[in-house]
């Protein structure tokens, strides 16, 4: 078991998501930055869908009760194992009683803790991703214990890698959304010429942008939405749906982020700048 001594800002178990239940309104959920999770799991020779912990801005304090191996990926958050510093993207041996704790956030917003074989929390509708009320709780709290399998004497093929982070990119790649044609020339110029900033309203459901563009009075029937769908409210607010985002919505879907760019946006926080580029 991994015991949560302190959860930090927002700590959850995530795999790549819960697929096949959109038709009854279940969001995909899953890791926000899939790219980082895949890298962390790959280093441990895990399956890419093996469950990891998603750490948001302020890291947790965690205690292991049996031998295993871990790797850290995603945001650069200063981390220590029994007070000794450890780096992202290296395979780290863990012994019974070891304590992993986190300090200052240096880069990005969401860090990942992958473990040999993946965390073994209960699957609900084929996924371990926490999403309330599909799972019993939305996130981990003090005292929670997450099961994992014991691993001794693992010889990693690669023990550490130098990674060029994907998430320092400021430009997000977008496709035309289903209601793209509603945009006026003025709105198009605004969207693609200006720089936008992430507002305080940013979480696993959606990222809102601080700057407004010209609004609209188009009303439409509720229709499907996906992670990465950019909705435009009548007031001119752009709302980018993320992994816990609702499966349907009633605002025009003007743009759709590329999947790669969802992983980039997942590492942005309040006040970070971004631009859009149509592909």
């Amino acid at each position, binding site marked *: 078991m991994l015991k949560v001594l302190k959860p930090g800002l927002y700590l959850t178990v995530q795999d790549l998501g819960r697929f096949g239940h959109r*038709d*009854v*309104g279940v969001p995909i959920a899953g890791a926000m930055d899939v790219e980082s999770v895949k890298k962390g799991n790959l280093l441990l020779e895990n399956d890419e869908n093996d469950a990891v912990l998603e750490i948001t801005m302020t890291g947790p304090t965690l205690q292991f009760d049996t031998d295993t191996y871990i790797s850290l990926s995603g945001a650069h958050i200063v981390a220590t194992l029994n007070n000794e510093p450890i780096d992202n993207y290296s395979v780290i041996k863990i012994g019974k009683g070891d304590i992993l704790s986190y300090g200052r956030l240096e880069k990005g917003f969401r860090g990942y803790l992958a473990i040999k074989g993946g965390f073994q929390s209960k699957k609900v509708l084929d996924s371990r991703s926490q999403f309330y009320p599909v799972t019993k709780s939305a996130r981990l709290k003090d005292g929670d214990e997450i099961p994992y399998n014991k691993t001794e004497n693992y010889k990693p093929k690669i023990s550490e890698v130098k990674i060029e982070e994907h998430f320092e990119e400021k430009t997000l790649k977008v496709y035309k959304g289903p209601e793209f044609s509603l945009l006026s020339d003025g709105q198009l110029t605004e969207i693609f010429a200006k720089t936008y900033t992430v507002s305080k309203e940013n979480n696993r459901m959606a990222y809102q942008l601080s700057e407004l563009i010209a609004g609209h009075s188009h009303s439409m029937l509720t229709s*499907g*939405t996906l992670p990465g769908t950019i909705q435009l409210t009548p007031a001119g607010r752009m709302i980018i749906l993320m992994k816990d985002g609702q499966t349907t919505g009633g605002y025009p879907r003007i743009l759709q982020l590329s999947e790669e760019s969802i992983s980039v946006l997942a590492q942005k926080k309040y006040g970070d700048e971004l631009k859009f580029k149509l592909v």
Partner: protein
Amino acid sequence: MKSYPISIKPFGERAVLVEWPDKVSESILADILDFMDAFKELEIPGWEMSVAYNSLTMVYNQDHIDFEETKNMILECQEKQAKSKMERVQHLWTLPVCYDLEFGMDIEEVSNTLDISVEELIKQHTSHQYVVYGIGFLPGFMYLGGLPPTLEIPRRSEPRLKVQKGSVGLASKQTGIYPQDSPGGWNIIGNCPVDLFDPSKENEPCFVKVGDKIQFESISKAEYELHKIEGEVGIYEPEKVVLNA
């Protein structure tokens, strides 16, 4: 039956949006469901589909897709659909609702605004069959069509931060049930004790399907408590009738 014209739009790297004429209509919904049945017959793994009113979002979970190829596949499927119409089982579900003031905290205000008595409001709300045009927004949230115009009322000017699970609400042309605690701006007139979404039922977390119909039935507080307990111990079975037998 002749199929309606459809338009197919790309929707990111692994999805397409298929749209039928821009209307809320039972025959359009039936055409969408026929298309889905025909598509499922092709048995291509990895696709998931979700309906909302006049549109179908089709997502391929396994990989990125080629839009033109997908578009052709969908058009071919629509041709095939026209030739072979399949039988589909649809249900009318009777869902109990307790309209007691304890749950329906807005019912008196709604009755004043609509200028009908609370009894008449309940009578109208329970005497119609509502079509399920989609499930989305929250797990198990049904988009219901067919509300009588006499019950149309704007949503509340300030949404509530927490609307209790099971709350039955009215908002413009819609009525519906909140399947979980949620913020919300609908006018709450009652509460339904039935779990509309149960993740422990791996094969069928939501018993209602798009295309089914819902009718509400007014129950007392005592019956409400009984159904609630039956639900908790797992012996509650919602009442259903096969529509197209």
